[in-house]
C-alpha cells in the first residue's frame, strides 16, 4: 500500500486486508489505540496534568497541616498524618474516577463517538481506553501523593508488600468506579451535568466515612452510615495494609471487620454490573 503514491485517495482496490485479526487481538489493539488517544489529550492539555499533580499535593498538605493538631486527642499512639493518608488517597482516586464520566460526556458532545461507532472496532474498546487512561492518570496522582506523604513524615508500617497491596486495592476500586461514572457520562446531557452530579454524590460519600476522622468521632447517625459506607471499607482496608490504624478500633460491622475483602468484592461487583451495562449503552448512544 505504501508504494501507491497517486494523489487521489483511490479506493478502487477496496478495503485493506486487516493486519490485526481475531477477537482478542483486536480488542487489545483497539483498547490500546483509544488509551493512546486519551493520553495524547492529557499530553496536549497541560492543565489536566497540572490538576492531576497539584490537587493531590494540596489535599495532603491541607488536611494534614490544618486538621492534624485537632484530631486524635490524647491517644499517644495516634499520628494523624499516618491515619489520614489512606483517606486522602481514597478520596483522590475516587474523585479522579469521575473524570471517566465527564470525558465520555465530552466525547459524545464533540461527536467523535460517531466516528468510533462507524468503525469495525471492538464494542468495548472506547470504554476500555477511557478507563485505562483514567487509571493511568490516577496512578500519577497516587505516586505524587505517596511522595508528598513520605516527605511530610508519613510512614507505612507493614512492609513494602503490604503497602503495595494497599495501593493496588485503591487502584482496583477506583478503576471499577470509573465504569460506574462512564455509564453516568453516557446518560447525562452535558459534561457539566456529570461534574455537578458527581460532586453531589462524592462529597457525602467520602466525607461521611472514616477517610478523614475515625468514624466513632462522627455524629451518631453519620457514624452508622460511615461504618457501612463502601468508601470506609476501602479506606480501612488500605489503612490496615499500610499499618496506619494508629490504635483506632474498627467498628463491629462486617464490612469494617473485613475491609479488604469488602473492598475487593465491591470492586468486582461494580465491574460485573457496570461493564456490561456500559457496553450495552455504548451500542445505543449517539452524539448530541
Amino acid at each position, binding site marked *: 500500500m505504501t508504494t501507491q503514491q497517486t*494523489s487521489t485517495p483511490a*479506493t478502487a482496490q477496496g478495503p485493506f486486508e486487516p493486519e490485526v485479526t481475531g477477537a482478542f487481538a483486536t480488542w487489545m489493539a483497539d483498547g490500546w489505540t483509544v488509551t493512546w*488517544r486519551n493520553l495524547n489529550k492529557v499530553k496536549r492539555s497541560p492543565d489536566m496534568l497540572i490538576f492531576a499533580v497539584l490537587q493531590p499535593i494540596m489535599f495532603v498538605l491541607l488536611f494534614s497541616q490544618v486538621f492534624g493538631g485537632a484530631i486524635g486527642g490524647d491517644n499517644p499512639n495516634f499520628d494523624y498524618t499516618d491515619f489520614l493518608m489512606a483517606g486522602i488517597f481514597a478520596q483522590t482516586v475516587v474523585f479522579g474516577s469521575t473524570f471517566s464520566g465527564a470525558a465520555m460526556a465530552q466525547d459524545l458532545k464533540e461527536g467523535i463517538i460517531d466516528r468510533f461507532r*462507524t*468503525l469495525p472496532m471492538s464494542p468495548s*474498546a472506547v470504554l476500555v481506553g477511557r478507563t485505562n487512561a483514567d487509571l493511568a492518570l490516577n496512578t500519577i496522582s497516587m505516586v505524587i501523593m505517596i511522595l508528598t506523604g513520605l516527605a511530610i513524615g508519613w510512614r507505612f508500617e507493614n512492609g513494602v508488600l503490604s503497602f503495595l497491596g494497599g495501593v493496588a486495592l485503591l487502584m482496583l476500586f477506583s478503576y471499577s468506579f470509573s465504569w460506574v461514572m462512564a455509564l453516568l457520562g453516557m446518560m447525562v446531557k452535558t459534561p457539566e451535568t456529570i461534574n455537578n452530579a458527581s460532586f453531589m454524590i462524592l462529597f457525602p460519600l467520602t466525607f461521611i466515612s472514616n477517610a478523614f476522622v475515625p468514624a466513632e468521632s462522627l455524629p451518631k447517625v453519620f457514624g452508622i452510615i460511615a461504618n457501612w459506607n463502601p468508601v470506609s471499607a476501602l479506606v480501612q482496608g488500605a489503612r490496615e495494609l499500610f499499618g496506619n490504624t494508629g490504635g483506632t478500633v474498627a467498628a463491629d460491622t462486617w464490612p469494617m471487620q473485613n475491609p479488604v475483602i469488602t473492598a475487593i468484592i465491591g470492586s468486582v461487583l461494580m465491574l460485573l454490573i457496570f461493564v456490561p451495562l456500559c457496553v450495552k449503552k455504548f451500542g445505543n448512544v449517539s452524539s448530541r
Partner: protein
Amino acid sequence: MSIIEAKGLTKTYSTRSGTVHALAGLDLSVPEGTVKGLLGPNGAGKTTTVKVLNTLIKPDSGTATVDSIDVVNDPQGVRRVIGASGQYAAVDENLTGLENLEMVGRLYHLGIKRSRARAKELIEAFDLTAAGNRPVKGFSGGMRRRIDLAGALVNRPRILFLDEPTTGLDPASRLGLWETISDLVRGGTTVLLTTQYLEEADYLADHISVIDSGHVIAEGTSDELKAQVGGHRVVVTVADEGDSQQAQDILRHHGAGKLSVSDGGREISVVVDQGPTTLQAVLSDLGNAQIRLHDAGMQRPTLDDVFLTLTGHKAAQDDDTEQEAS
C-alpha cells in the same frame, strides 16, 4: 440487488414537545458504482436515513442492507466495508490531523505502520499537509471537515456515506471535493450523499431522492425530476421598476403557475406550458405595453424549482404541479 437497499424504514422520536416521525416508511435503493443524492428540507430525515445505513442508529422497523449485509443484524460487517462522514465533523480536537487519521486506520486494524502511511497520503490528498501536525483544535471549520472526510476514506471503502460533505467548505475546497468524489466513483465507489446544495446534487448525483417528512416523495435523475416539475419558465427583467406591476399582470396571464418575483420587483418569472410560443406572446404583449426590458428569456427548470415545487408550499395551497409530482 442494489448495493444499498432500504425498505420501509421507520424511526420515531418522542420528545417533550411530541413525537417526531423522523422516518416514516422510507425506501431507498442505490445501484453499485452510482451516486445517490438525498435532498430535502431541514428535518426531512436525511441524516436519520444515513445514520440507519451507517449503523449509528437502529430503525424501529423496516430493513436495510449494505453490500448485502443487514445493518441491524451485522453492524460490524457493515462497518468493515463502508466509510462515513457525518453532518458534523467527528474528529478528536486534541489529536493532530495526522494522528486523527492514524487512529482511524488503527481502528480499522491496518496496523500502525500502514495507518501512518495512509494518514500521510490522505493529508496530502486533502491539501492539509501544512496543518497535519497541528492539533485539530486550531483548525478552521473547513479544515476539520476535510479531516473528517479523509477519515471516511481511510479504509478505501467501496461504499461511502456523506452527510452534507461540502457544508462549510470554501468554493475551491468544494470543487476539489467534487473532483475527489468523482474520481472515487470512477474507481467504482458507491456514494450516498445528502446536500443542501442543489447544484451539488446536479453535478454529482446519478440519482436523486427527494425526502420530506420521513419518506421519499420523488425520485429519479436530475433531468427526470426537472421534467416532473414541468415546463419551462419565462423570465423577464424590466428596466424600470415602475413597470413591474404591469409586467406581472402580463406574465400571470400567460403563465401556468404562481409568479415568482425578485430583485425588488424587477425580475419576474413564471412556469409556462409552451416554452417558445409563450415567450413570444409574452414579449409581444410587453412590447405593446411599451415596457422596456433589461433581459428576457427562457429557463429550463433547475433543481431548485424541483425542490421548491415538491416540498416548498406543501398543503399550503393546491398546486397543480405538486399534484402531478406526487
